């Protein structure tokens, strides 16, 4: 496929790897913000092409991972109701709520459908006027225009049996929050290319400048990611902290204006709770006043319902929040590869194949010291520990 496979060839990958090795002189910690990038890094074994001094940490950019338990519990509540068709993207079905997951609601008879697009859910609503069709509208800025369009068309066409349970996140406030954290070890960011395709990157220079971090807008193919790392390391070694656009074939500086307009028409900013991380001011999107009739929480009387704080998952020692803030790695978690495995996840990052834990588990790197034992439970002297245990630098780059 054009614009895809040419970015996965061993020859060019090797060339870029050599360029990276040539410029790297110090230890650097870089975060790729987006889970899709994490997935590609692990799937294509990109760590193998990097010098030992480059440490990649994995950001919070996986909506499956950061959607709060509260929302999952509300989704489960709604999906279990008799007259509801509950629509969701595939991976959300396995995310643990405080008691169970959507998959088990389905196993008990709930009408839950996996859709490819929010518009598919809207079409279902048109075809089933006797049912309430609810779409679990998760996502970052990339997905927000699609979710917005579904609400916009529902209102325009008077499809009143349709509603959205929203859990939408914004990237820049999360980056800023991580930069402000005193524990943060992140020295540069690979920004999420598909988010920037919508938003552009005009808000990044002031972040780069304020916190002294280079930010490289980066694509998702192996070659994109390596080039993003190269540009980032080059800046770090040269003492720069600027915004660069590696993904220029897709991302324009001002982003996608019609899509931004749609977001603004349908949504408004709100404080948002990130699973494992906590509240971040102005980091989420909710339906604006005019679209409130399409808000599932309101429609089903769940606006003020709060899940019991005591849940079996987040109290179980899952360190997903630390992982998504670049403070820890999956193999630092005592459950990783033991109780917590893709077939029986404890935390959300083990669910989505973009979640850092699942990606690490699934695409284990080959290593002479036998990464996996036969039962696929990880042993302590794990490949992935290598980089984290090597040097626990907390140095923030100052310039």
């Amino acid at each position, binding site marked *: 496929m054009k614009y895809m496979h040419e970015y*996965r060839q061993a020859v060019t990958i090797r060339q870029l790897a050599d360029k990276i090795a040539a410029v790297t002189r110090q230890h650097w910690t870089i975060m790729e913000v987006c889970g899709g990038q994490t997935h590609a890094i692990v799937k294509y074994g990109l760590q193998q092409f990097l010098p030992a001094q480059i440490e990649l940490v994995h950001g919070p950019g996986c909506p499956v991972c950061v959607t709060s338990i509260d929302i999952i519990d509300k989704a489960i509540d709604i999906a279990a109701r008799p007259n509801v068709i509950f629509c969701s993207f*595939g*991976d959300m079905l396995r995310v643990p709520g405080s008691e169970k997951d959507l*998959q088990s609601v389905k196993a008990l008879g709930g009408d839950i459908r996996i859709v490819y697009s929010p518009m598919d859910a809207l079409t279902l609503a048109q075809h089933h006027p006797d049912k309430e069709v609810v779409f679990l509208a998760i996502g970052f800025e990339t997905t927000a225009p699609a979710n917005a369009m579904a609400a916009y068309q529902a209102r325009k066409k008077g499809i009143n049996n349709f509603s959205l349970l929203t859990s939408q996140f914004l990237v820049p406030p999360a980056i800023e929050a991580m930069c402000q954290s005193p524990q943060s070890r992140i020295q540069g960011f690979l920004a999420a290319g598909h988010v920037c395709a919508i938003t552009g990157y005009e808000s990044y220079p002031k972040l780069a400048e304020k916190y002294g971090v280079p930010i490289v807008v980066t694509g998702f193919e192996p070659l994109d990611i390596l080039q993003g790392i190269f540009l980032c390391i080059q800046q770090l070694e040269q003492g720069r902290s600027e915004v660069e656009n590696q993904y220029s074939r897709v991302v324009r500086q001002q982003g996608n204006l019609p899509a931004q307009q749609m977001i603004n028409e349908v949504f408004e900013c709100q404080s948002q709770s990130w699973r494992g991380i906590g509240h971040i001011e102005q980091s989420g999107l909710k339906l604006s006043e005019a679209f409130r009739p399409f808000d599932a929480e309101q429609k089903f009387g769940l606006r003020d319902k709060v899940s019991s704080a005591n849940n079996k998952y987040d109290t179980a020692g899952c360190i997903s929040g630390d992982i998504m803030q670049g403070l820890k790695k999956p193999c630092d978690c005592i459950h990783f590869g033991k109780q917590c495995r893709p077939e029986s996840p404890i935390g959300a990052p083990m669910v989505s*194949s973009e979640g850092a834990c699942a990606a690490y588990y699934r695409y*284990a790197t080959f290593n002479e010291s036998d990464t*996996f034992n036969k039962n696929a439970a990880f042993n302590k002297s794990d490949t992935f520990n290598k980089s984290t245990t090597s040097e626990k630098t907390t140095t923030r780059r100052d310039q």
Partner: protein
Amino acid sequence: MTKEQIDINPTCPLPFSDNERILLGHGSGGQLSHQLLTELIYPYFDNPMLATGHDSALLSIGEQRLAFTTDSFVVSPLFFPGGDIGKLAVYGTVNDLAMSGAKALYLSCSLILEEGFPMNTLSKVLASMSQAAKETGIQLVTGDTKVVEKGKGDGVYINTAGIGVVPHDVYIAPQHIQQGDVIILSGDIGRHGMAVMAMREGLEFDNPLNSDCAALSDPIHTLLNEGIAIHCLRDLTRGGLATALVELAETAEKTFIVEETAIPVSEAVTGACEMLGLDPCYVANEGRFIAFIPAAQAETALTLLRDHSVSATSCIIGRVDEDNKSQVIYKTTTGSERLMQRLPGEQLPRIC
């Protein structure tokens, strides 16, 4: 007398908590299926033949060497581009027999029909089974029909079991995999799973994407007739190529090295997998196999296989390495290496 009062007092090797339940993933052919088999089912049937993890059991009755296998088919939709549940049910068992080097002779067929299932649909399924049986030369000799209440089935489930004869000089089994063997894949992967999933997702195709659903007996028998010393065969079904490789590496206690760039995937399957966020190595097939063959015979074998339409694009995707670590090393298109894993549960479309 109520249910609770009946004391069946089983000798249970594994205690489960009351809320441990069967998940869809236990039927995916991947890691959960593997656990179910090795931790629950095998311990009850202390039979070395089961643990070989072979496609069919090898029996000796008098002077005869027989292969015996069974499968139940529960596909939805019942009809999909390139096949239907009836074809699958016949080919699936014929193929499992072929994977032992057996000539398929006799088939049983057991139907579990759901109350309310249309007679015309049943008739179409049976017509398809009949045609597949004729085509593969297997005779349906015994059967059974049950009807379950509405809401306790899905139209029709079909079980087939098959008996075949294994020639006296043929020894095909995971245990016979040798260091230095090449691993041949009989064609491009992922067609069946994507054809079925695409139908559910409403994807359109340039040229219709057909399931690879096919009988594999002809190319296998050509190899055997031409004196290829096949060490092992495995048809790729649930769990896909990756799961089959991992299972064989574990059973054979060998290390396989497999090249991503050598694995053929059609444009249509690639496109659909990229769109849905799936990995073709984990997608189901119903007409593909891998063969472990001495390197010296690899070229001859490829030539013979390519003579059959069902294996026309056969190619070498890897080899058996020296160390015996029960693992599959996967060389990715970028040049890196990682370990292949079983499919964990089922593959859900990944969107976000």
